[in-house]
């Protein structure tokens, strides 16, 4: 065999092998220089906008409320947009400014809203037969602490400044104990959602936290990764459950339609399924007096704070 031939053969062979290694994904042609399309404002006049306070963290909220919002959208025959904000106050501001048509808010936030700009109740969820919930004081599962009292001088996680179960309720308990809520804990901070507070305790970032019983129970039932690593050392008296509110300027027809859908949701098969999944029995008519206990606590804590100043 001629050496020239073998060299050529070898070269061809190697080229073929090399060629086989090459990926030949085809690139889509795109012209990036034409930048006419701009980001518009995200206001959406077509949609019904419903805000959800970050009782649980925004992503969890998204998952939690997805089906219900889809259901509402279907029933209302308009797209329903879930609007979230970091703090309860921001949601209250949205309601006040009519930026949203309705909102799921915390009990305390409702009281504040009603006091400040006449936030109106639309409906309340009923859990285990009543529109009430509790505040749980939780500590890590292996913690030696067994009462709120023992948490003095420890670190503690509040949920939101406008949270009832996550802030007002423990402050009230501390005040009842004759302690100053401002100085009772060595360090406090806001997690801005109850699931984050549970996580913070489970991960032992804090020594304790006050959380919404609805959130803890739901999490414990559906995803006990973090709740299983916490224990409840104190359960508050029942409070009026966080309601669905509307701005007082909302179109009455819309308000009525929305209320009707909510109140009849448990009668609908699909609606019932959704409600079961998020562990709500049904939506019912709301009564402002449901939140009187919260108003009372607010006054006590406010007084205690003034006194300590």
């Amino acid at each position, binding site marked *: 065999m001629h050496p020239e031939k073998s*060299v050529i053969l070898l070269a061809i062979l190697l080229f073929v092998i090399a060629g086989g290694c090459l990926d030949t994904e085809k690139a889509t042609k795109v012209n990036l220089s034409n930048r006419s399309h701009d980001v518009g404002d995200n206001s959406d006049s077509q949609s019904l906008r419903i805000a959800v306070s970050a009782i649980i963290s925004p992503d969890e909220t998204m998952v939690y409320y997805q089906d219900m919002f889809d259901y509402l959208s279907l029933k209302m025959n308009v797209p329903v947009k879930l609007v979230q904000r*970091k703090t309860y106050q921001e949601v209250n501001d949205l309601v006040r400014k009519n930026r949203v048509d309705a909102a799921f808010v915390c009990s305390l936030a409702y009281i504040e809203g009603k006091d400040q700009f006449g936030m109106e109740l639309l409906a309340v969820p009923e859990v285990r037969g009543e529109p009430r919930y509790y505040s749980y004081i939780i500590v890590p599962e292996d913690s030696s602490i067994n009462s709120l009292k023992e948490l003095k001088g420890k670190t503690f996680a509040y949920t939101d400044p406008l949270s009832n179960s996550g802030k007002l309720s423990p402050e009230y308990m501390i005040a009842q104990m004759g302690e100053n809520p401002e100085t009772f804990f060595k360090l406090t901070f806001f997690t801005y959602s109850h699931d984050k507070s549970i996580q913070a305790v489970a991960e032992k970032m804090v020594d304790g936290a006050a959380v919404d019983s609805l959130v803890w129970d739901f999490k414990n039932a559906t995803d006990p990764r973090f709740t299983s690593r916490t224990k409840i050392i104190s359960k508050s008296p029942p409070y009026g459950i966080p309601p669905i509110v509307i701005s007082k300027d909302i179109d009455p027809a819309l308000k009525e339609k929305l209320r009707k859908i909510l109140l009849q949701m448990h009668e609908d098969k699909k609606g019932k399924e959704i409600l079961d999944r998020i562990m709500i029995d049904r939506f019912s008519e709301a009564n402002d007096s449901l939140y009187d206990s919260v108003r009372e606590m607010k006054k006590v804590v406010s007084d205690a704070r003034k006194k300590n100043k």
Partner: protein
Amino acid sequence: MPGKKINKLNNFIGGGLVRNFVVWIVVIIMLLGVLTTIFVQVSLTKTLSEELRERGQVISRNLATSIVESILIEDTVYVHRLVENAKKTEKDVKYIYITDARGKVLAHTFEGGFPGELLTSQIDRGNSSHLLDTGDGIVIDFTAPILDGRAGFVHIGMDETSIHDKINQTSRAIITLTLLVGALGVLMAYIAGNYLTRPIRSLVKGTEEIGRGNLGYQIKTDSTDEINILSKAFNEMSYNLNNSINELRESEERYKKLVDSISDAVILIDSQKKILSWNSGAQKIFGYSLEEVADGNVNLLNHSSASEADNLEIQDGENVFKRKDGSTFPGLISNKPLQDSMNAGNVLVIKDITDQKEKANLEKLLMQSEKLFTLGKLAAGVAHEINNPLTTISLHTQIMLKKKWDDRTDGRLKIINKETNRAARIVKRLLEFAHQPEPKISSVDINREIDNVLNVLEPQLTHTKITVNLTPLPLIMADSEQIQQVLMNMLTNSIQSITMDGEIIIKTATKNDHIEISIIDNGCGIPQDNIGKIFDPFFTTKMPGEGTGLGLSICYGIIKKHNGSIDVKSEVGTGTTFTIRLPI
């Protein structure tokens, strides 16, 4: 003169072998370089591309995770900051943009507006990444869902340019390295080639020396490899070759001497009759040197015209040859093929037989003379003894005839008388033959003698045409009577040979130192067997009683006495030519 240039180059880099060596090394290095470059390009592209994809995926997923809350709470500013930050801190990020679940752009890193085309290219969401050709390089577009797509999507464009830069850089490095290695390879191949071909070159020098005739040249070798074996074999070959050639030379020398010692011409010719070689004998015989006749046709040496002999096979036997000076000589040629096959050439051996011929002629002449002398004595004796009784018989017959006899007796007496006279004539001629008188020399004009003879013979020439073609001849010293006798005899012979309508041509001519008389007839001719005998006494073809057979013999004697010669050429049925030569 490209050949010259290459030769020069060969000399410079040490010959074709080294050049081949260098060329092949360079070819192999370059080929390996190219292959390495391709291979590295391919594998580097793959690796870097995979790395870029992984990074893109990681960045997009991380961003999707970290950005979810900000999106959900519509913290656009924070979303922007996160996006810009990600673009700033991560390398190769060409762009980032966030869309909500419905594909609306929430934030992006493009300056001066978002390119709408990018959105349309995103229709296929099946792949988490795909390639985009932006016209400014290839971009890998990654899409990571935020909250399973419920909250939207993070899109990151990873620029492949830096990959290509890196690959190009590496390729350049490899190519540079290849060129460097190639250059180094040339140098090393040259050195190695030179080292390896050194023994070969000494072999080449050895063959050149032998080619130049320096037989027995020995190569010095100190290596122990195959070249050494070759060198030893070469040296042995050289030694043996030298011996063989010397033996051959000695042998050739011997044979040359042998051939040169032969006095005959030994000529080697090829199949085209060209002279290849000859011995010194040939040189002596023909007068040419070998250089003069080499490659010349052998017919050059032949007396007969060349064109005639060109196609003829050279026949063994007698022939006439020509020397350089133009003179001719008789020779005996023998032609033997060099080998059995036809085309190998022939060996001609030519023997100069001039001396032999002369000797034979002399012997013949001597014999003739002796014969004549003996015959003359015998004839004289017989004639003398017969003459006396013949005289007596003739006398008495004459006496008896004077008397009256009856017719019968008278007739017989006349016959006796007639026959006696005839016998007396024969005796007289015998005596003439035996006692040929010395010529009485005087100035003779041969032409006039011919005229005289013709006048005498005229009565017999009734049936014969005589053509006389005489040229003026110088007077020669001869016996006019004897010359007349010769001419008479000759012409009578010719006339007698002619039967009917014959012609006789008589010519005279002057040649260098002699005159020639030719008598040409168209008679019956003389058979070849008889030509040698016609001058013998008593040889005759005539019926007994018609001739004595002494005429030509007498003529021969007369001409001999005049120091001349008689030649005869004859062919049966065509005629005979007698040529008499007499010295001036």
